[in-house]
């Protein structure tokens, strides 16, 4: 790349400070991934359910244009703002929510040295940004002035306190193992053995907490259709609903990236044809995150959903214990000198 002098717009885009928020893992790839993952979710579910799923919208591509058609439909449908809502919150809430849910990607590095914010606590930054969104969500749920929305928002609030602790504890367990809070160092440390093999307990706790955080089955509690219609997004239509839907998938996208970096070795192991620096190792991250997301959406076709009290109980009883055990395992590994 050094031999070739790129014209300035391209070199500007290739700068990590621009590339990461805007292209990958930022907006462009995020949008494409969302379209893909929604299609994949519907197709996988259909496969388990012994049917075709979306098909005729683009026959040759197996209906891959379905999320696009839905998106266009939403853009061109009427934006209803119910009379009794708090208009400001109703309109700007979803946008704020989407912004907050996409913000954590700026902390995600693509390779050693290729990162938007070079910080030795980037892991903490990402986790801190991840857990802001639910607070905005509560606000949105309140602003809709609808009982179902409110119940959905409250459920999300309840769950928030039960998944955040396991998330942070299992992350801490890994941080203790790698002796670092820098995502680059963490990923580099997994060049030999992936975190998921070092501390499977932490990986399990994090994965389950991730399911609760992103509202995937069996923890699709805040949007439980047959109980509270569409939960906190009941009153939304058109583009704002699309943004809400995007938010829930964006949270999944971000968490999957975090899982990849902390537990699945990030860009390791690099295949030979990829350079070890620059932005191309990001491809490995993308592939792994897609696999994680695929697994998350596949659960839709397998599990019913839990009740909210059961979700909270699982968070506090099972995942909390599990993540504490993960910390103990990490300490044991480090203290015994097996690792580190």
């Amino acid at each position, binding site marked *: 790349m050094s031999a070739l002098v790129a014209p300035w717009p391209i070199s500007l885009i290739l700068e990590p400070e621009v590339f990461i928020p805007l292209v990958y893992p930022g907006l462009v790839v995020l949008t494409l991934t969302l379209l893909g993952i929604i299609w994949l979710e519907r197709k996988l579910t259909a496969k388990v359910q012994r049917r075709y*799923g979306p098909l005729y919208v683009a026959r040759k591509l197996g209906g891959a244009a379905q999320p696009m058609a839905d998106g266009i439909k939403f853009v061109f449908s009427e934006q209803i703002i119910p009379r009794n809502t708090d*208009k400001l919150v109703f309109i700007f809430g979803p946008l704020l929510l989407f912004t907050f849910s996409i913000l954590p990607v700026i902390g995600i590095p693509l390779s050693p040295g290729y990162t938007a914010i070079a910080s030795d606590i980037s892991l903490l930054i990402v986790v801190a940004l991840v857990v802001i969104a639910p607070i905005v969500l509560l606000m949105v749920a309140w602003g809709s002035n609808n009982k179902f929305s409110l119940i959905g928002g409250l459920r999300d609030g309840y769950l928030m306190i039960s998944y955040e602790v396991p998330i942070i504890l299992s992350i801490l367990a890994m941080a203790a193992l790698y002796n670092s809070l820098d995502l680059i160092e963490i990923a580099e440390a997994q060049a030999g053995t992936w975190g998921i093999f070092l501390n499977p307990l932490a990986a399990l706790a994090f994965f389950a907490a991730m399911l609760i955080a992103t509202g995937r089955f069996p923890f699709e509690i805040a949007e439980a259709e047959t109980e509270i219609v569409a939960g906190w997004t*009941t009153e939304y*239509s058109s583009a704002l609903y699309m943004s809400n839907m995007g938010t829930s998938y964006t949270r999944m996208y971000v968490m999957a990236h975090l899982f990849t970096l902390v537990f699945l070795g990030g860009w390791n192991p690099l295949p030979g044809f990829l350079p070890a620096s620059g932005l191309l190792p990001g491809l490995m991250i993308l592939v792994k995150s897609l696999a994680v997301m695929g697994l998350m959406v596949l659960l839709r076709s397998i599990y019913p959903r839990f009740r909210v009290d059961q979700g909270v109980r699982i968070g506090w009883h099972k995942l909390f214990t599990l993540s504490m055990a993960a910390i103990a395992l990490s300490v044991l590994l480090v203290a015994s000198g097996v690792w580190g």
Partner: protein
Amino acid sequence: MGQKKERVILLGNLENAVRKVGTRLADMRPIRNIRNWGITFSLWPVPLTTACCGAEFAATMSPRFDMERLGVLPMASSRQTNVLIIEGTLTRKMAKAVKIIYRQMPEPKFVIAMGSCAADGGIFWNSYNIVRPKDVLPVDVFIPGCPPRPEAVIRAIMQLQDKIKRKLKYRMDAKERPRKRARRQRVSRGV
């Protein structure tokens, strides 16, 4: 709450102007085609079952007929849907609910009346508690049959798609909906 001054995002005529420009833009050629393509393959019905035809509608969603092939995906809240399928007889009590639900849906929206009862009463023609959907809503497609077979439901959806592709006039909101539309409906014949 009553005392509170209403907050408006776009003030006065600006909002109106934006609406007009938006409508005009959305009706121009390439945009119109893209829009119609999107709507055609994204007909999301309301989860409303008015009577027993719902059994056949559910069968249409089942793996054997799989409505999702055509992009039809039943959605939870009426705000996020654009097709109202009246599944069978419409009773007086339900008709009121249906009216509210229709008003809750965003434009552009379509109505399919399923079954003989929804067309003209069917076997319950002389009941004291039914209304004809065509008196309540502007129906786009009728499906004959008591109950219609799932194939007929799929056919109706394809007819609706055809209709959207050919002649969908775009409205940004439901304020001035012409009443005449109720009379212009087409009855689908035969299966």
